[in-house]
């Protein structure tokens, strides 16, 4: 069999669930019998009683790629994973999966509390699709990886939750799948084990495995994934470069939040509802574009990382045609998507190309990776999607958000000074 280039192909996949509240009055045998005996007509399933979790999803997951799924709670991400895994079957559409799947939807499925870790490895391994011999061959490897020490021969009910998760994660990742499906479980155990599990994930990535992962950590998606899909309201809203998808997703969230602040209610308050469209239609009357974005330190160089106490110049190349009054905007967001600052400048009337410079005399940020977003817009028109630039900051080494310019002075009170003095 020739290896297809796509590991997973979803075509027009729809999934509906019956509404539970409705099912209640016809779910027992008793009521069914009564209905039958009294010759009532079977009530038709009205479409209104169905919850449509997925409304026609088309997605191709290329072999060997790591694909992140982002989206709000209730947008259909988990349903999608369960469909790919084969736990659910689609209401309509087709799903092709090429390769052995291991799904890490919930760790430790089928663990029996009264059994020892070792015994549970065997049963869990078989449940996850390994043969008995395969599990036997990997048991030592799994035990070593889980770092449980002597606890491996104790009943699982005596484990701490961290130990339980570690064991479960160890089994799940030793299945040696071709396709790995992960739902929000990368943060297993303590710092040390979290690093180990990240290393394991890297190993999978570099081993050419296909990974499909759902996470709410947008930074993970940006740094880890080759591709990202944004699931919104049961459809794929965007699919492509993770940075672009995440940025667009953040923009929609921000737009929804802004709307919520204005009107008191928005798409955010109802789970699963699609987020509002972000306006990105180009202005018809003319164009105002950012054509380049650079960051420099005080000496005019573009270092790998900027110093907390150093300055930063943001250079925005623009192009405005025809002549118009324009406004520049520079936002800075932290890795977790928070807005650090938002600056705007009405530059007056401009025509043609040029460069605008924003000088930050002192950066004053704690260590981390930030993102600059630069926009230019014609007066009274919404800006086009921003230009982005990642900026690394080092030298502050503080916890928190800002690193203020500071100095310490100790001033002992006069009495204390006399008591200890001379």
């Amino acid at each position: 069999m020739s290896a297809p280039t796509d590991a997973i192909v979803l075509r027009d996949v729809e999934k509906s669930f019956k509404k539970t509240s409705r099912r209640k009055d016809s779910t027992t045998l008793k009521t069914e019998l009564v209905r039958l005996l009294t010759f009532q007509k079977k009530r038709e399933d009205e479409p209104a009683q169905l919850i449509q979790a997925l409304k026609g999803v088309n997605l191709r997951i290329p072999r060997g790629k790591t694909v992140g799924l982002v989206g709000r709670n209730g947008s259909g991400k988990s349903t999608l994973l369960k469909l790919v895994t084969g736990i659910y079957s689609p209401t309509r559409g087709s799903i092709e999966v090429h390769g052995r799947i291991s799904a890490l939807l919930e760790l430790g499925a089928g663990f029996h509390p009264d059994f020892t870790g070792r015994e549970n490895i065997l049963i869990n391994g078989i449940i996850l699709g390994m043969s008995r011999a395969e599990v036997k061959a990997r048991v030592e490897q799994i035990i070593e990886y889980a770092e449980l020490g002597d606890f491996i021969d104790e009943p699982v009910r005596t484990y701490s939750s961290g130990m339980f998760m570690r064991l479960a994660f160890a089994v799940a990742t030793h299945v040696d799948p071709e396709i790995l499906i992960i739902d929000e479980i990368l943060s297993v155990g303590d710092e040390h084990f979290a690093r180990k599990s990240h290393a394991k994930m890297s190993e999978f990535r570099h081993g050419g495995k296909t990974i499909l992962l759902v996470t709410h950590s947008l930074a993970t998606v940006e740094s880890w994934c080759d591709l990202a899909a944004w699931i919104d309201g049961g459809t794929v809203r965007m699919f492509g470069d993770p940075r672009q998808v995440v940025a667009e997703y953040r923009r929609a969230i921000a737009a929804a939040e802004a709307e919520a602040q204005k009107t008191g209610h928005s798409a955010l308050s109802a789970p699963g509802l699609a987020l509002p469209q972000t306006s990105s239609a180009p202005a018809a009357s003319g164009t105002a574009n950012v054509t380049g974005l650079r960051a420099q330190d005080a000496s005019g160089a573009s270092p790998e990382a900027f110093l907390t106490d150093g300055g930063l110049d943001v250079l925005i190349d623009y192009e405005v045609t025809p002549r118009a009054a324009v406004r520049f905007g520079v936002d800075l967001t932290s890795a977790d998507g928070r807005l650090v600052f938002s600056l705007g400048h009405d530059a007056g009337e401009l025509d043609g190309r040029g460069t605008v410079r924003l000088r930050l005399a002192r950066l004053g940020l704690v260590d981390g990776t930030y993102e600059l977003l630069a926009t230019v817009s014609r007066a009274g028109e919404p800006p086009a999607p921003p230009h982005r630039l990642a900026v690394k900051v080092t030298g502050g080494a503080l916890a928190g958000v800002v690193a203020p310019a500071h100095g310490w002075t100790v001033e002992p009170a006069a009495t204390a000074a006399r008591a200890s003095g001379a």
Partner: protein
Amino acid sequence: MIRNLKELYQYRALLFALTARELKARYRASVLGFFWTFLNPTLNMLVYVLVFGVILSTSVERYPYFLFCGLIPWVFFASSILGGTTSVSDRKDLLTKVRFPAQVLPATVVATNLVNFLLSLPLLFLLGALYRDWPSWHLVFLVPVLLVQTFFTLAVTYLLSSLNVAFRDLQHIVANLVQMAFFLTPVLWNVENVSDVHRFGLHLSAQQMQDVILYANPMAAVMSAWRDIFYKHAAPQWQPLLVVAGVSLVLMWISSAVFERRREEFAELV
């Protein structure tokens, strides 16, 4: 049906592992674990012996042994049905979190009880030995009779387990039906002691009545076969058994179809 059984064979490692675990769990939980399995039928037997053997003074010879010959296979059947009915609906953890072949679950219950049945046989022989009743060469018939009973049990279990996912009150109904079937099946009484019936305009000779019981109730035929092997030391009547085998095959075909059709919604409904 073929597909269902083929898949079951394909997942046999899982079936074995789960069955082994069930057995281990049962026998490990307490020191008495192993004895609990025997204690239940033994106590049951003592109650029935007291009621039917002593108080009602049945005419059946070696009544405790006679009773035990029927009770042990019956416990295999009844426990499988009762446990099997909820086997799918109780495993939300497996069905919604991993891709799990649901048909393994009812089969695990039947397999676990099958092993328990085999483990109880020494107890049966021990009781027989007290009556100086030794197993005879007719024990070879144990294999086909056990096959028929297991297949029949599996078919019923598949049907009930798949229906119980959507209709949760089925398990309570099943509990009552099993109790009823217990009295309608020749476990406590001997099918050969049935007398003529002249009631409701029906006139059946003892022989005809026996045939009605043996052919209408699959478990009656099986029970009677067990008695033939252990108690009478004779070859079991093969005609009723053949009918049961046929019924089981048809039932398995229906059960598999129902199971197969409902299987897709298991993960959503449990």
